[in-house]
């Protein structure tokens, strides 16, 4: 390997690492607030990318219909829960129902209408990207409502099983929604620049810039805004959060929506660079997981470090031992867990 190749591989590794870092941060966020290991995060990446590809092909993406159907199911679940609560404790307004209808029926319908309208118009890339995000992200709070909300007080391992079930449901639907073939989106950064004799691809620059911007936005959200502080409060002390009126379900929905938003942006960022199909999310999501393990699902900085370890290893092994790339990357869990054991103090006295 000569230095040029080494630098090229490093460039690849850093760009991928930024994506894994974003996903790992999203995983830490969801886990801290809800105790959910959000395995289906990779599917949100892929769904967004493939939705964008469909939009760019002047189609109405089939994810629109998924959004409408899942919205209806979520609304029915809300109505059923409302009736049950009403029987137990009569009185109180119908406001929750209207809110649910707006979120689960009206919003998907509006998004679907816009998507259909736009599919006839000439393509504008930023608008297409926005549309893809708008179609995919609202699925997250609906999934929280249907899969996780009835299990708030469950054993953490039950949440794990539900997560993997959601993951496979999304993969199974993905085949139907997008077909078996892989594809790439149109490039959004077709330029490159020279940096100290090294050619840097525009996409790499954009990925890094977007990652940096998103990190800053997340920081400001959690450090400065009331909803951000409320989410942190749930992560720090669940009972305390309940006592000041921060709802478990609302914060769970918000956490999953944020994670889905981050994943959707990742999907946009990588969509021109790699060929994705309905199955690709599994590997992407799991690598985010391996990275998040280093930080024990609590530390954002360590999750980012983990992400770059994973991506650089992946980048270099694809050069040296491309057949065994995934074997080596996933085996990384072993040293990472050893490190984790070393980093965490013994569990003595924890109840």
């Amino acid at each position, binding site marked *: 390997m000569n230095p040029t190749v080494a630098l090229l591989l490093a460039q690849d590794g850093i760009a991928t690492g930024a994506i894994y870092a974003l996903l790992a941060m999203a995983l830490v966020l969801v886990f801290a607030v809800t105790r959910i290991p959000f395995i289906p995060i990779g599917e949100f990446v892929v769904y967004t990318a493939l939705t964008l590809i469909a939009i760019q092909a002047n189609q109405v993406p089939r994810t629109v219909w998924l959004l409408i159907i899942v919205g209806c199911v979520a609304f029915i679940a809300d109505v059923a829960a409302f009736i049950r*609560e009403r029987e137990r404790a*009569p009185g109180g307004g119908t406001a929750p129902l209207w809110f649910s209808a707006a979120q689960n029926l009206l919003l998907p319908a509006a998004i679907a209408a816009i998507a259909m309208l736009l599919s006839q118009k000439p393509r504008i890339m930023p608008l297409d990207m926005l549309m893809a995000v708008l179609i995919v992200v609202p699925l997250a709070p609906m999934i929280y409502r249907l899969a996780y909300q009835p299990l708030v007080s469950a054993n953490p391992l039950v949440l794990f099983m539900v997560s993997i079930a959601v993951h496979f449901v999304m993969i199974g639907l993905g085949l139907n929604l997008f077909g078996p073939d892989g594809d790439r989106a149109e490039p959004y950064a077709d330029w490159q620049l020279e940096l100290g004799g090294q050619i840097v691809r525009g996409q790499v620059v954009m990925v890094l810039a977007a990652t940096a911007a998103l990190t800053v936005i997340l920081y400001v959200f959690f450090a400065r805004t*009331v909803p951000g502080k409320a989410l942190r409060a749930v992560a*720090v002390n669940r009972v305390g959060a309940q*006592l000041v*009126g921060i*709802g478990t379900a*609302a914060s769970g929905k918000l956490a999953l929506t944020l994670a889905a938003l981050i994943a959707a942006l990742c999907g946009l960022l990588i969509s021109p660079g790699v060929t994705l199909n309905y199955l690709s999310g599994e590997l992407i999501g799991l690598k985010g997981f391996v990275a998040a393990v280093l930080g024990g699902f609590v530390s954002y900085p360590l999750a980012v470090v983990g992400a770059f370890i994973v991506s650089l290893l992946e980048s270099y092994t694809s050069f040296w031992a491309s057949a065994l790339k995934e074997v080596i990357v996933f085996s990384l869990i072993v040293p990472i867990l050893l490190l984790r054991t070393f980093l965490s103090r013994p569990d003595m006295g924890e109840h």
Partner: protein
Amino acid sequence: MAPVLDVKGLQVRYGGVPALADVDIVVEQGAIVSVIGPNGAGKSTLLNAVMGILPANAAARGQIRFEGVEFSGLGVEKRVFGGLSLVPERRELFGSMTVADNLLLGAQRLRHLGEANPMSQIDMIYEMFPRLKERRAQFAATLSGGERQMLAIGRALMAKPRLLMLDEPSLGLAPLVARETLNLVSRLSATTSILLVEQNAKAALNVSDAGYVMEMGKMTAHGPASSLANDPRIIEAYLGVGKKKAKPGD
């Protein structure tokens, strides 16, 4: 005027095991009511059931009427938005967040109600607890026991509750601080009704209008605080002095 809190026939079971049996309690508007009784009598369970934060394996039955609205079955946040606040025995502060942020989040009820200035209370809290103002940029986890108690009460007051429930507010506090806390409770009654659970029976009754005595999941006595304070049965219940003979099967 309807009482703030009217509990009738409240039963709580953990698994199959009864913890509260047919408990009735009334808190009138503007009153301070204390529930006293030995450890394990079910006092905290009572407050947690009213607040709706019983553990998953617990089942509650009975009426919990709050300002005329039935609360049983409602989620915790709806009870908070309705005007109920609890300072729990374990305080449940946000340890890795600042004192100011803890207070800020205490005002979620006012934000929900759409009040123009949800932080209007904070100056009053800082005036009541100057220590909290000094430490407003510090993490809650670094506070001393007394300061944590102040913050827990301050956070609850940020919601401008209609009823403030305090679970063992003097627990783990030095005697002087404990006394101050109870004095504070009597001052607070100008703005909110209070339901107080205390082991420190005499001190609690001193600041209360009415009292309930709880033993083994049941209310065994209640009445005006002044008459309960001198009731010999209370001393018996706590220290076993006076040689009450317990009856088989009680």
